[in-house]
Structure formats: structure tokens, C-alpha cells
């Protein structure tokens, strides 16, 4: 247990020591999105009855920032340790693949929650945001950021260079987040894109998360929960298997 706790503490310290870059900067980015989109889209139809576009946007943006930062946390930590070689310090001790997985994913969730709270607090200054069910909010926040934390481990293991990681981020993570209904309700999309969105697990994370605030969603919250939970489980199992096999860590 001490080994796991030490690794977790190190992973949390790693982003906390540079919180300006790892927490404040993404919150600022989200605020810019919020200001610009809220302004440009102010005349657009409200997604749900009785909810303004601004209100609709804030939870989606918070979730998007959480997902991106959970991914960034594990993937950048791993690639940095691999490139500098100090990954050695955690490969030599008797840490298990569970220790590894747990410490990295929990640290990613911690950073994601810090960023999410930051966006939410700023959002409160700009619009009234109801809380329909705090339980769902927390469940989706944790499952979503945990899933992206696990995905970040996989990407960090796979990549040898920063640009490979950037490619993963730009060609996988960004399209999935942008096409998930952060900025719009998918009901406003043409049929083809509506259908396509239903194959995007990010859509369910954001839809379920938004349900926690408004009690309204594009699909049933239970479906969102099942899809998100299943995706989290599958990615976690894949991550654990890769860590256990020593993929790209112990040649």
C-alpha cells in the first residue's frame, strides 16, 4: 500500500506543482470558449425547454475540459518519464500493474475534478446552473475522467515521442470531444450525424453529466451510464493487460 500511495502522491504532486499550467490554463481556455460561443450562439435555440444556451453549454464545457485534462495527465506523465528515462525509478520497485493503473488513473481524476470545479465556479458567475442530481454529476465526472485517464496510459505507453502523442490527441481525442454534443444538442444535427454520435462514447458521458444538472438529456441517463461504465471497464481492462505485459516498458 505504501508503494501505491507514494506513486499516487507523486503523480498528484507532478501536476499540482505546476497547477498554473495544468489547472488554471485549461480553466481559462474553457472560459474563452464559453464567452465566445455564448456570444455567437446567443440567439440560437435553447437545446432543452427552459434552459438557455449558456446554461446548456457550461456542463458540456466542464466535462470536455475534464476529459482532455485526464488524458493529458497520464499520457504526458508517462511519455515524459519514458523520454527522460526516469520511468526506471518506478520500474525497479516491486510495484504491481494494479498499483500503476490505480495511481495514474486516480491522479488523472483528481486533476480533471480540479479543472471541472474551476470551470463550474467560473460558470456560476455567468449563468445560473441548476443541480438536478449531484450523484449523477459525480458518477459521470469520475467515470469519464477515469476512462480518459486510462486511455492516456495506453497512448503514453504506445507513443515514443511527443508528436505521436499530439497526433493521438488531435486525431482521436479532439474529434471525439467536439462531436459529442458539447456545443449543441445532437437533436439539432442531421440524421446521419445523429446516428454517428450514438457510436461516440464521449456523447454519453456528456449527455449523462448534463442530465445531472438539468434532469433532461438526449438519451436515457441509464443508457449513458451503461455505455460510459462499459467503456471505462473495457479500457481499464485493456490498460491493466498492457501494464501487466510490460508493453513498451519492459522490452
Amino acid at each position: 500500500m505504501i508503494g501505491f500511495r507514494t506513486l499516487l502522491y507523486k503523480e498528484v504532486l507532478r501536476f499540482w506543482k505546476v497547477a498554473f499550467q495544468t489547472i488554471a490554463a485549461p480553466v481559462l481556455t474553457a472560459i474563452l470558449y464559453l464567452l465566445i460561443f455564448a456570444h455567437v450562439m446567443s440567439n440560437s435555440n435553447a437545446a432543452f425547454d427552459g434552459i438557455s444556451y449558456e446554461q446548456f453549454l457550461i456542463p458540456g464545457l466542464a466535462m470536455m475540459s475534464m476529459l482532455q485534462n485526464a488524458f493529458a495527465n497520464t499520457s504526458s506523465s508517462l511519455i515524459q518519464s519514458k523520454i527522460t528515462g526516469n520511468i526506471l525509478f518506478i520500474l525497479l520497485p516491486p510495484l504491481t500493474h494494479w498499483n500503476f493503473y490505480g495511481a495514474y488513473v486516480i491522479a488523472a481524476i483528481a486533476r480533471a475534478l480540479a479543472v471541472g470545479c474551476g470551470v463550474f465556479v467560473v460558470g456560476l458567475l455567468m449563468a445560473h446552473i441548476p443541480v438536478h442530481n449531484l450523484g449523477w454529476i459525480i458518477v459521470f465526472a469520475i467515470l469519464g475522467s477515469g476512462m480518459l485517464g486510462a486511455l492516456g496510459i495506453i497512448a503514453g505507453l504506445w507513443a515514443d515521442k511527443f508528436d505521436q502523442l499530439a497526433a493521438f490527441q488531435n486525431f482521436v481525442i479532439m474529434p471525439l470531444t467536439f462531436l459529442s454534443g458539447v456545443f449543441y444538442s445532437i437533436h439539432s444535427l442531421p440524421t446521419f450525424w445523429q446516428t454517428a454520435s450514438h457510436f461516440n462514447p464521449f456523447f454519453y458521458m456528456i449527455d449523462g453529466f448534463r442530465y445531472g444538472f438539468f434532469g433532461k438529456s438526449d438519451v436515457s441517463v441509464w443508457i449513458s451510464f451503461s455505455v460510459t461504465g462499459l467503456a471505462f471497464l473495457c479500457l481499464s481492462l485493456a490498460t491493466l493487460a498492457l501494464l501487466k505485459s510490460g508493453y513498451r516498458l519492459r522490452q
Partner: protein
Amino acid sequence: MPAKTAISIKNVEKSFGSLRALDGVSLDVEEGEFFALLGPNGAGKTTLISTLAGLSRADAGQLFVMGHDVVSDYQPARLALGIVPQEIVFDPFFSVRETLRFQAGYFGIARGASLDAWIDELLANLSLSDKADKNMRQLSGGMKRRVLVAQALVHRPPVIVLDEPTAGVDVELRQTLWAFIRRLNEQGHTILLTTHYLEEAQQLCSRIAMMKAGRIVAMDSTANLLNAFSERVLKVMLHESLPESLAQRRTKQSGAWHQFAIHDYADVEQLLAQLREAGVAIERLEVSEPDLEEVFLKVMGK
């Protein structure tokens, strides 16, 4: 597994593509030994150490640390092993003390007064006390290497492996480092080291293995290797020619210098007596001791 074997390596093979970096290496190091693994660059020493540490997986064969298989029983194997890597690596986020506290934590050692006292002792022994609170980035290469030594020892492993620990460390600190490692060995720690300084290996190690192209080409006690491959030599400089009676015993001649292989000092007495009897005056005389460099060159040349 015999209980007294600290490191046991059995028929280990490892290839990188078509390159056979380890070509069936077997090696046992007993508890309490001071063992040297020598060989030219690219012989496979670091690869062997990596497979022992679990940083790399052998294609075939098995490795044990204190009787624990490094793959199937990796936790006790890693707990028993302290590795000083060849390459200097560090975490720029941390100070020297933080680095050591984290490393201890990964090995399951709780923070507290007893750990801090041990860290202070390690730093003092490695002449790093005044650097304890410096960030790793502010240290010179030699200092970083000594931090790596401290990191390897922070969980008090019974088996310590040092991969070229003195590369880039200046002479004075090299002495300090070896004195410390020797003390650890006297306290019962098993030491395995690789080095390019053969005189260090000769002075420190009781047993030596030499590797070449992924194979062990010689392995014996230091004394036996020196006796088998190297000899004491008596060199005399004479004005006159060598008496006939001694000519067959001569191993080499260059100008006025004549060279004889000797086993012990009685041989020297005898040779000198024969020269005196023949009435040959000795201008100069040298006796050279066997050295590991000669052994190394002969073994590698084979």
C-alpha cells in the same frame, strides 16, 4: 535453489532483432561475494543487468535474486535488489532528499525519522550531505550518479548491482565510493559491478566473469584468473650476452633487456644466483606483478 546464492542466472538468451545480445549466459553469485562482470562495450553486460532487474524480459532462461524468480516472483526479487543504472537519469521535479524519499516509498518504506536518518547516512557516505535540498537539475553529472547510488541503496537491498558506477566520477570521489561499497560488502551485502577500470576490479573483487558478444568467456576467482592468464615477470638489463644456461628460460628479449617468467620470489633468487655464477653484471632489474588488463586482453583476444 541453494539458499546461499544471491544471484542465479541460468541459460539466459536475449535478442534485439538479429543481434544476439545474450547468447546463453549462466552465472551464480554467492551471498557476500564482491563480483565483477567485465567485457568490452556491447558485450551484453547492461542487457544482462536489465533482465535481472526486470527492465527487460529474457527470451529464454531464468534469473533469480535471493532465490526469487525475477518474473514469476518479481516482488521479493525486486525488494532484494538495488540497481545503479549505467545511464544517468533523474526527475527534475525533485530535490535530492525528495528523490530518495519517493524511491523508498515505492519500495514500501514509510516516511519518518528512521528513513530520514538512513537517507542522511547515505548522503554523508556519498559526500552529498550539502546537496540534500538542492534540486536534481543543479547537480553535476558525478553528483547525479552518486544520487543514483543512494537511490539503489535506500531500501537496504541485500544484493547491489552497479553498472559502471565510477564513469564520470573523479578520482577522489571514486575512492570514497569504493570505500563505501567495500564497507557494504563487509556488512554482508552481495555486490556485482561492471567497470572499465580493470585495476578497480582487481583490487576489489574476489571473483570475475568476462563477457564477450553475449557469452561468458572466462569466470574464476581473481587470483586464479591472474595465475592462469598473467604472470609475474622478471626483466634484467645486461651489458653482456645472456649465458647459454639461461637462454631457454628467457621468454622475451628486446635489446639489452631479457625477460623471464617467474612464479614466485624463489625463482627470482635462483635466476639472480645463476647470473652471478656466470659472472654477468646486472645493469637494471624490474619485477612486474600480474595484472588484470593482461588477463583481459588475452581472454578477449582468444
